[in-house]
């Protein structure tokens, strides 16, 4: 009888398998044609562009909102968006935007200066508790509505990155009617913009669905009018587990995917049905900030020796499968005002590294293979977060520095708050941290004396002045010169160990064409995307 019980169980199991294998229709094809699934890589904690701060939210929302200005994807220049023209006052405190007429939000509300004002009110209100957009406005002090289609933004001091801020989706213009209808924590489910795609639904942890806006005629110059083949509906899903991303592309369950594993991207190069679309991300490269307040990296020679002793090419070959360029300075090459003079400043050079360490008084006096000074062992401590394959990079660096006699201990931290807690203790020599953005003013919070992300502990009046002056200065050439000097100073002091310029390893189904990315790198421009019919 027990045997029979067992047999019965097996039968149930077999039945289960059988039902599982029955050829049930694979999935209900949506009635909409030209529909794609776009794979996001993490789920932001919230999807309100005015409140939340993740880069991931901009991937869908860039399609929903227009911004006052855009950055042209080929020239990086600021071009007209919802504002047709703009001017900056002589003192740099007043920005006057002339707004486009005849624009309506997806809910039918007309776009005008009042609408822009309502958005600014929401972003700056204390109740909104914006995690990003309010800080992008810098020294904002208010606005003046000049007429129905003209608005002035007033600043308390000059702030040149303002136009850059207005080109980003975090300052996307939302329908004032929708903003007042839904409270702050509900608006993310009912977003209304003026962009090429209409926000249909957001189901947290599951999907975001967008549908093409048939009335859209006011896009920036690089947006082409839709054709029969244009993508009409987009479903965004969250592929949080990296190794499954390439699998979803291959099984055609997703047609676009971000942030593939480099090894998977290499595997996909052999698949004609899939095309790789690597996009460089401007901002800081993947880097380690070097603590100038703790022995032995308080010594500039040691910092420089560490840079000379790091074989970046080897790291990029092994960890990133050659999909990223070597980084040389505090800004990646696709960032505005990048200074190419920093290139090759610290080429891999063991002789230089050894000479610098020797000149600083280091030697291996006890013959254990590692350097010491005045009887004290030298040890470099590195804080290693788990993301971006940084642990593997750190492990390679640990071995590379062994050849110049530096003993390295790695301190892995699980989360960003744990990283901060370790930084606050001050017992580290290097810590991996960086941020993205195309305007180099992002360097201020990293390198100004006492700034919140100044994990190098470096403080220098000259560098502070350069950074502040560059933020106030609106003249392009003047800014370029100032930031060139900033990059030179940072590398001369060896405050960062740059590893690689960020590249988002996107890939798409080969049938999807015309997909481009805006100059910020993370955000696709899906207006021009077309889905060729299956051949």
């Amino acid at each position, binding site marked *: 009888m027990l045997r029979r*019980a067992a047999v019965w169980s097996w039968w149930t*199991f077999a039945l289960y398998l059988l039902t599982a*294998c029955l050829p049930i229709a*694979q999935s209900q094809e949506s009635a909409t044609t030209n529909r794609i699934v776009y794979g996001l890589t993490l789920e932001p904690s919230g999807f309100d562009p005015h409140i939340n701060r993740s880069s991931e939210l901009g991937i869908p929302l860039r399609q929903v909102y227009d911004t006052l200005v855009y950055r042209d994807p080929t020239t990086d220049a600021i071009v007209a968006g919802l504002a047709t023209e703009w001017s900056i006052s002589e003192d740099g405190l007043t920005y006057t935007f002339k707004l486009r007429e005849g624009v309506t939000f997806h809910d039918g509300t007309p776009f005008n200066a009042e609408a822009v004002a309502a958005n600014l009110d929401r972003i700056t209100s204390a109740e909104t508790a914006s995690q990003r957009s309010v*800080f992008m406005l810098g020294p904002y002090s208010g606005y003046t509505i000049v007429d129905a289609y003209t608005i002035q933004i007033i600043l308390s001091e000059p702030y040149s990155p303002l136009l850059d801020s207005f080109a980003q989706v975090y300052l996307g213009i939302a329908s004032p009617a929708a903003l007042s209808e839904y409270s702050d924590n509900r608006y993310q489910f009912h977003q209304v913009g003026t962009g090429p795609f209409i926000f249909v639904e957001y189901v947290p942890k*599951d999907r975001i669905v967008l549908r093409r806006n048939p009335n859209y005629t006011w896009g920036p110059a690089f947006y082409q009018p839709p054709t029969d083949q244009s993508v009409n509906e987009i479903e965004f899903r*969250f592929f949080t587990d990296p190794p*499954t991303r390439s699998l979803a592309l291959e*099984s055609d369950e997703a047609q676009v995917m971000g942030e593939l594993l480099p090894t998977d991207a290499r595997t996909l190069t052999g698949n004609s049905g899939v095309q790789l679309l690597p996009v460089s991300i401007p901002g800081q490269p993947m880097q380690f900030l070097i603590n100038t307040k703790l022995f032995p990296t308080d010594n500039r020679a040691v910092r420089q020796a560490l840079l000379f002793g790091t074989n970046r090419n080897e790291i990029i070959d092994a960890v990133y499968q050659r999909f990223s360029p070597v980084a040389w300075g505090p800004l990646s090459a696709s960032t505005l005002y990048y200074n190419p003079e920093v290139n090759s400043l610290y080429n891999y050079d063991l002789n230089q590294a050894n000479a610098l360490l020797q000149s600083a008084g280091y030697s291996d006096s006890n013959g254990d293979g590692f350097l010491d000074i005045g009887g004290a062992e030298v040890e470099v401590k590195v804080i290693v977060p788990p993301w971006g394959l940084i642990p593997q990079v750190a492990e390679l660096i640990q071995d590379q520095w062994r050849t110049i006699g530096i003993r390295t201990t790695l301190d892995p931290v699980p989360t960003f708050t744990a990283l901060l807690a370790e930084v606050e203790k001050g017992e580290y020599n290097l810590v991996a941290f960086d*941020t993205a953005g195309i305007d180099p003013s992002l360097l201020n919070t990293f390198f100004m004396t006492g700034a919140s992300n100044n994990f190098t502990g470096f403080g220098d009046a000259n560098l502070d002045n350069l950074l502040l002056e560059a933020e106030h200065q609106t003249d392009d050439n003047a800014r370029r010169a100032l930031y060139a000097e900033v990059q030179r100073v940072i590398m001369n002091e060896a405050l960062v160990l740059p590893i690689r310029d960020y590249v988002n390893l996107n890939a798409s189904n080969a049938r999807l064409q015309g997909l481009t990315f805006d100059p910020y790198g993370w955000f696709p421009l899906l207006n021009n995307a077309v889905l060729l019919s299956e051949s």
Partner: protein
Amino acid sequence: MIALIQRIGFMLGIIWLAVTLAFFALRVLPGDAIQSQLVQGGVDATVIEERRAEQGLTDPVGIQYLRFLTGILRGDFGYSLLSREAVSEMIARSLLPTATLALGALILATVLGIALGVIGALRMGGGLSIVTRLLISLSVSTPIYYTGTLAIYIFSVLLGWFPSAGASSFNHFILPVSVLGFHTAGSIARVTQANVSEVLDAEFIRVARAKGLRERDVILRHALRAGLLPVVQVIALQAGFLLSGAVITESLFVRPGLGRLLLDATLQQDYPLVQGIVVLAAITYAVLNMLADIVRLLLDPRIRI
């Protein structure tokens, strides 16, 4: 009636103990979600402190704890520090997908686990026995992320039989349930096997046989009943563990649900959300335990509950 009130009182006690443990455990960690988000944006420390104060995160821990408890009593689980949605809403939304996944996996695991366990206990020998043992060992020794990835590669990419991403149809349900169910079956099988084979040797079975009862009655009336007692407990435990199993399964198969909600909330230190999920987990465990006790009572009325 009194027993029922006692039971409910105990359940409340369990929930209180669980959330208290979780509350103070979380406060040991440095930082919180708000600090983490704002520091990444380079926001000034004074602004960050203001924001944390607005959410009551700078109050003494005792005050925060009291506020949290009184909130629960009023049915208010607070708001997520990041999305600022009501915690109860966020959990309610994730409940169904995880519950269906867990239930499917549990049914599969129970059927498969008991089948494998009984076959193992009968010591029939031969190929079937070896396969059974191997399956049990594989189930306990292969992590979900490995079997899951292989399953996606074989059944979605190579064979194209099942979709691997999403939760919109029954077909989406099969791979995740199979992977999670197989992983869960091992421990049920182990305990079934040990108990059934032990009971088969037990004295009262021999007595029953000696009394001349038919073998079928011996096994049905006595052996299986007694042998399955601890198995019921293990099944109840596994039902609880399914939440941790769901963390990885949901990420692999791109499903919405509580597992991912918990993972994100924990790593981002979104305290109200984690606390809300703990309340739910405590209720689930208390109910499961009660159910397990009842089932065991039915299997063997002599047990005192």
